[in-house]
């Protein structure tokens, strides 16, 4: 140290001739691969969109108008509506680097509460629906509390909550299904989201684009959440918390509050999915929605949302759900074994995660 003293920083003489600007933000040379990587990095929903377009085109060519008709294409929308809604909730949670395994259970319990409150206690159906929505929100908030304040891993919290909620659902409902006819007669509002309407059908009411209100709800939800995530402070905080919670905390983000609100909103959205489920199957069944967990996570992963948090968009999850829907219907129309669907979806999942890893390498 002693001979360095007094003379300052000789070893830095080499840097004296360097550029004087502190940091230049120029884009360095990159080839078309780098360009694509950058594009995907800024718009992660692009990959699932391209895959969706290609799969629709391929099935359209293979199956002709049997597949490529307003009726068939809107049928896909109807079939993915519930998964799409739940996948939106799942996306919010996964963006915070968490995971929610209790989405399906929350949806079922909420639908059972909507039904039982109406039929067992004779509550007005509007009130029963509000109770179901409140219950979903409360379970979500409890998940969030355990994750944010108890510092428990989201996987464990929601794994436990899944079992608890599902068991509570069977205990409370006494494994009893409320029949479709009864609902139709006394509380049709429960089936509201299953109501269909047609655009462009022929005189006999066949063909044409057929929608349910659940589809409309899903689209509105995706639009709303896209706006919130992109254009509000809360949305930016969701990404920051998922990206690096310590950095977010030091930057002044209320990390715990954001986490609790994310899980609570996810619970609320799942409760809406529960309502949509009554519309879809007609009855209130405590055994419905068993596959929603895995289907929603599949849609989210195929939709290019990173399981490590902080990357991806709601739109991606919608595309992911639609891709699964297109494969399912397309292969069924081709009379292929249903296992082919699962096989191809498995390939897509692994492919999507590989692409995510590649995008993450973008850092200079």
């Amino acid at each position: 140290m002693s001979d360095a003293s007094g003379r300052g920083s000789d070893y830095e003489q080499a840097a004296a001739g360097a550029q004087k600007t502190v940091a230049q933000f120029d884009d360095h040379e990159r080839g078309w691969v780098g360009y694509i990587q950058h594009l995907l990095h800024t718009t992660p929903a692009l990959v699932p969109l391209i895959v969706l377009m290609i799969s629709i085109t391929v099935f359209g060519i293979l199956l002709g108008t049997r597949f490529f008709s307003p009726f068939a294409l809107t049928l896909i929308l109807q079939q993915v509506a519930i998964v799409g809604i739940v996948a939106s909730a799942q996306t919010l949670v996964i963006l915070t680097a968490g995971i929610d395994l209790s989405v399906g259970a929350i949806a079922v319990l909420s639908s059972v509460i909507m039904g039982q409150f109406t039929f067992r206690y004779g509550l007005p159906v509007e009130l029963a629906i509000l109770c179901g929505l409140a219950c979903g929100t409360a379970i979500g908030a409890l998940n969030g509390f355990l994750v944010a304040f108890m510092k428990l891993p989201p996987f464990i919290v929601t794994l436990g909550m899944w079992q608890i909620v599902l068991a509570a659902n069977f205990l409370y409902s006494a494994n009893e299904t409320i029949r479709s006819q009864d609902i139709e007669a006394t509380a049709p509002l429960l089936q509201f989201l299953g109501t269909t309407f047609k655009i462009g059908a022929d005189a006999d009411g066949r063909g044409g684009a057929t929608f349910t209100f659940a589809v409309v709800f899903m689209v509105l939800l995706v639009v709303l959440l896209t706006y919130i995530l992109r254009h509000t402070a809360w949305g930016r905080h969701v990404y920051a918390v998922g990206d690096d919670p310590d950095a977010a905390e030091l930057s002044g983000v209320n990390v715990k509050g954001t986490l609790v609100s994310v899980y609570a909103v996810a619970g609320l959205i799942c409760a809406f999915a529960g309502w949509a489920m009554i519309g879809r199957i007609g009855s209130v069944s405590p055994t419905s929605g068993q596959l929603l967990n895995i289907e929603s996570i599949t849609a989210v992963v195929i939709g290019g949302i990173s399981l490590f948090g902080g990357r991806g968009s709601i739109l991606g999850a919608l595309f992911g759900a639609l891709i699964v829907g297109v494969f399912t219907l397309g292969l069924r129309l081709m009379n292929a074994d249903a296992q082919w669907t699962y096989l191809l979806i498995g390939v897509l999942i692994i492919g999507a995660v590989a692409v995510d890893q590649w995008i993450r390498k973008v850092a200079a």
Partner: protein
Amino acid sequence: MEPILQARNLVKRYGRVVALDHCDFDLMPGEILAVIGDNGAGKSTLIKAISGAVIPDDGHIRLEGEKVSFRSPIEAREAGIETVYQTLAMSPALSIADNMFMGRELRKPGIMGQVFRQLDRAAMEKFARDKLNELGLLTIQNIRQPVETLSGGQRQGVAVARAAAFGSKVVILDEPTAALGVKESRKVLELILDVRARGIPIILISHNMPHVFEVADRIHVHRLGRRLCVINPADYSMSDAVAFMTGAKEPPHIDQAA
């Protein structure tokens, strides 16, 4: 001259370990004060106490003569003390502008902002661009670029610009050159001098003696949980400073603290 930031008698214990032992601290307006000390001397605890990350067991802190007691870094920040952490505290996937305004976003005026909570992205990006330009972080092509696509020096530059933009009273820099190469360190040092030129006092924590001696106006030597002495870098050599720091040499008797 009154110190802008003054701490007296700070005590912080972790179990039986005394991290701060009746420590004093003074920062004068417009100066760069370097804080040096051996590992475990308690300098990071001192800095955390000042920036609100640690609540001292005893003693008090005055900012511009007013007594303050921060319970979180957010409170210190609201009082005008900005800290650039060694980890930089940035979200890599978010843009430069998003990061600069993280936790203090601007909303659009009128109904879009109040009812729909819409962010005023244009205003935030303009502000971010202006601040980076002011500090000579020129030629930014894309303020929406994610932070992870920047080099280490560029990230440090953005973090310092963020602190300088919002730190109205004091900016604390924790080891700003530790992770950087020679060339990038040089640029960050210039940036530090730029910030001082704008009248904002800086607390610089660093292990790098050449950097400390180059930019600091005064050097606070921390040893065994307290301020050992404050020296003027013009009067002492780097080896003297290291000797004070390690206890190999008696500190000067005339305290130049204030």
